[in-house]
Structures are given as C-alpha cells and as structure tokens.
C-alpha cells in the first residue's frame, strides 16, 4: 500500500497512436488545481473557446475560468417530475374509474388519499430523468475518447489536472497552442488523435 500510485500505471496498456487519425486537440497536464485554474483563465483570456479540463474531482469554480455556461439539466428534471405527477394523477383516476373501490365511503377519485402516490411518482420520474439525462449530456456511455490516448491519461482520475483544447477551435494552432501551454507551465503537452 505504501508504493506510489504512479508505479501502478507503468505496465498499463496505452492506446496506440493511429496511423492517420484526425487531430482531436491538445492536452497539457498540471500538478495542482491552482495551476490548472490559472492556466485556464489565461487560455480563456487568450481567446480560446474549445476549452475543457479533466480532473480527478470537480475543481470548484473552474467553469468560470473555462468560460462554460451552466447545465440545462434542471429543465429536463422538471419535465420528468411533471410527467411523473401527471402520470400519477392519470393512473389513480383511471384505476378508480375502471374499478371503483368503496373504502371508508370515500369517492372513487379521492385525490387527497393519493398524495403519497403522487409524491413518490414525481420523485421517481425526476430521479430517473436526472440520472439518464446526465449521462446523455456528458455524451456517455462511451468506450473511447481521443483524450484517452494521452500517455498520462490514467492520472486524470488520480492526481493529474489536464486542460484540453479542441482542434476545432478557430484559434487552435499546433505550434502556437503548444508554446502557450508550455509557457503556462503545462507538462506532457501532447496532441491527441481521434
């Protein structure tokens, strides 16, 4: 348990570089969240738009440094919850219309008694929507992503803090971008291919 985790990566199969794959983008690594944060701010201010980071844990506030807009997830969840609630009302209405049960003299559609059902179905549908839409927005599941070709990719889920620049960014230039990343202190700057 004492050995460093980096030893663990040494005999790890690294995905081979393709012969003539398209350039996906450039990646550079930092050792601390603070260095990454600073570099992202500089890159954003230099006019880069296709920025992203890869970190072992969410670095607080990094979306500001990357210039990213907030997620649209809550709207999906709201729609999911509304579906659950509507579904619950329709379900209890239909079942009690189709097969009326006289319980304690209550009318068939006694909505007050069904509130627990409505609540649970609202929560259930919201949670399922939240779960599946999140992975959809993250473009997951996937077997492969070009960033996985970086030779230190395994550190992105351990202790490496990567910045990635998409090659579709109009400002992207193999030499200039590499030079800027190195100037900002990035290590293992590497262009990866899809």
């Amino acid at each position, binding site marked *: 348990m004492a050995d460093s985790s980096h030893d*663990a990566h040494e005999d790890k199969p690294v995905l081979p570089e393709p012969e003539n794959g398209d350039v996906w983008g450039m990646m550079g690594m930092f050792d601390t969240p603070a260095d990454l944060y600073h570099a992202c701010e500089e890159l954003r201010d230099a006019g880069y738009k296709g920025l992203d980071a890869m970190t072992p844990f969410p670095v607080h506030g990094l979306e500001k440094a990357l210039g990213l807009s907030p997620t649209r997830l809550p709207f999906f969840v709201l729609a999911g919850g509304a579906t659950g609630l509507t579904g619950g009302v329709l379900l209890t209405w239909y079942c009690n219309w189709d097969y009326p049960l006289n319980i304690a003299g209550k009318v068939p559609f006694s909505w007050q008694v069904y509130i627990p059902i409505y609540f649970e179905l609202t929560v259930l549908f919201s949670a399922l929507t939240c779960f599946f839409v999140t992975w959809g927005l993250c473009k997951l599941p996937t077997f492969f992503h070009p960033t996985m070709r970086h030779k230190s990719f395994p550190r992105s889920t351990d202790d490496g803090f990567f910045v990635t620049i998409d090659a579709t960014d109009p400002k992207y230039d193999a030499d200039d971008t590499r030079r800027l990343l190195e100037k900002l202190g990035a290590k293992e700057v590497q262009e990866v291919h899809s």
Partner: protein
Amino acid sequence: MATTTPNEVPGDTPGTRAPLVLGKPTFSTVTEDVSAIAESKPTPKYLLGLMLAASILLVMVGSLAKLVTTGVGVWGLDNTVFWAWDITGFVFWIGIGHAGTLISAILFLFRQKWRTSINRAAEAMTIFAVMAAGIYPAFHVGRVWFLYWVFPVPNQMSIWPNFKSPLLWDVFAVSTYATVSILFWYMGLVPDLATIRDRAKTRLRYIIYGILSLGWRGSHRGWLHYEKAYLILAGLSTPLVLSVHTVVSFDFATSVIPGWHTTIFPPYFVAGAIFSGFAMVITLMIVARKVLGLEHLITIRHLENMCKIILATGSMVGYAYGIEFFIAWYGGVEYERFAFLNRAFGPYKWAYWSMVSCNVIFPQLFWFKKVRTSIPAMFALSIVVNIGMWFERFVIIVTSLHRDYLPSSWTYFTPSIWDISLFCGTFGLFLTMFLLFCKYLPVIANSEVKGVMPQANPHPEHHDEEAHAHG
C-alpha cells in the same frame, strides 16, 4: 479495536476543527489507499468472513423455502397477533437504510463535508438494508408468485390495487426509495470506478470497470452536469427519505388499533430510523476502517459526529415515548390508556423496558466526550441501540395487538423457529452484500475526499480551511 494511530486527533478542539483527512496525504496516496482495497487478492480471513456470511444467507434461503412451500402458518402468528416478527424485521431494516440517505443527501445539502469519507459505505448499507427489508412484505403476501399484483398491472379482470391503502403507498414509497438510492449510489460511484479502470493491470478488469464507469474521464463539462445532477438527486432524496418512513408509519397510524392510531408516528418513526441507521453505520465503520486500514480517512471526528447524531435522535425518540403516554392519558380514551399501561406493565414489560433502556438511557452516555471518542464504547453502544430499535418495533406492533378489545381473544405471541431463522438470515444477506461491496467497489468516495482536502482549493491564497466539495 481501541488502538489509535499516533496522528489521530481525538475529535474537535474548540476554535480549530480536526482535519477530515489525517496525516499528510497527497491526491495519489488517497487514490492508492482507497483503490488498493478493491485491487488486492482476497485474504483468507476475508474469504472466511464471506463464507460465514453466505452460510447465514443460506439460513434465510432455507427459511424462505420452508415458508413458501408450507405457508405463512409456519410463523408464530395467530388470529390476534397477525403481524409480528415479519413486519418488525421490515421496519427494522428499512429504518437502518435511512442513515445512508441522510448522510448522502441531507448532510450534502447542509454542506457537512465530513460526510465524504463515510457516504459511500453508508449508501451501500442503505441499499442492502432495503433489500433485506423487501424480503418481508414480498413473502408475507403468502403466495409470493402473485407479488406483482401489488403493482397496477393491466389484467383481464380489470382489477386494480387499492390506492387508498397505506400498504399500497408503501409499495410505491419503498420501490421508489430503492430505485433512487441505487441511482444516487451508482452516480457517486462512476468517477471512482473510472479511477479503478485507469489503474487496471489486467485486460479483464480494464473492460469490466471500463463498462461500469461508462467511459467517465473527469471532463469538466461532464463534472458540471454531474455536480448539478448530484445536487438534484440529493434534493430529491431528502424529502423522499422522510416520506418513506412516514409512509411506513402510516401502515400503523391510519388504522384504528389503540397504540397505533397516533399522529406522532411519522416524525417519531423518522427519528428512530435515523437513530438506528447511524448506529449500524458506526458498527460497520469501526470494523471496516480497522480491517481495511482507513483510519486516516474515517477518523475519530467522523465517528464522534455520528455519535452526536445518535444522541440527538435518541433523545427525540425518548421524547416520543414520553409524549405517547401523555397523550394516552390526556386523550381520555380508555382503550388507548389500557394499550399504553399494558405496554409498560403488561406481559411484554420486559420488551418495553429493554427498549427504553437501550434507546433512551444508554445513548445518554454520549453526552460525555470520553464515551463519544472511545471506540470500544461507541461500538458497544451502537449495538445496544440497534437491539433497542428492534425492540421498539416489536413493542409497538405486538403489544398493541396481543390484547384485543375482546379479552377472550387475548394471546401471548411467541415466535416460531422460522420467525427467528428468517430474521437471522436477513443479516446473512446484508453482510454478504456488504462484504462483496467492500472487496470489489471503492468503499470511500475517492473523488469527494480529494475535493475536501486543503490542496483541492484552486485559490489557496484565500486560506479556506477546507476546499469546497461539490458546487
């Protein structure tokens, strides 16, 4: 179990707080400490433990086989006491599950960062406890192969379930709770499964953990959605967990049985659930941190905080016991008065006073810091609390039933061997699942623990005591 490592800080000192991660770990040592558990070969001791748990699980399977082939008559039930160990076991296990959701959702919303090193295992515990709980209502229906009748399934007779029954509300509440707990747990696991994938040394592990981790790579655009999703799921789970035990208490409270028909049941049941759940978390964590060598991540501060929650909820439960008696007297209904006097001084007084001493008296020892920070003491007390909480459900259920309105139908319930074996067997299910979880999945939320380490703060110049975890 009492040994403490030299750098262990005994809880909070006024002014400064004990750090959440002890020693001077780096991100990679945390990765190593957490992931190595899921990567090492099972030790003989582990296999022995697993076999023991699996044998107890077999007792459950055997008891269920006997139950299904013979009928619910194998239990010690009679015409007066028609609900006993089965529903006691159900409420006991469902209650234990509540601590996991409380830790993962409610403490998350309250920004209690100490939750990070215990939430994963507590959530796993929730899921396994709900599984154990689900056994009871599923088999109590008698003909388990018709269990799907509890769901509104279209059928040729156009018969639908009774949506006005709290038992059906229970179906919806418990199944929603199980589903949402699994989603929440799995969502938390994905980044850590990706860590194990990236450390994989064999192709098989690479593929299995690769599929389980969905291809997660910690992209910040992904983290943005993920963190919002985690917050939303926490927000959804918080009212959900409160609703589940509320609905469980409705099973009793909406009836007209003296001793059950009380409005205090929902909050009283929820407090009791959290109380018993935290006791189970302490029992499991004390063993797990020792065996898995995670004493620097699950520190005395974590355990002490849990003891404080046990003290608070235990006192709430004690208050509920008292107010029940007050209302029985103040309400002036003679059946209600009789039910409570019979509870405390009738044939089941041994059960009642065991419950009071285990749940109200002993947890008061947690007022003393010495007790809160002593591992043997809290281990013993956590077990006492769970015994007490089992008795609480037994007392509520059986003492309210066994002396009916008609003295001619009064009975004294004695469990049959099958009642006992099934209840013991559910521990086998719970422990087997928990042991498998400890071996094959990251027991500590790797990414979340890293997020609360001081060096995780991207603005170190601001001297935040701890960096912000999640949003």
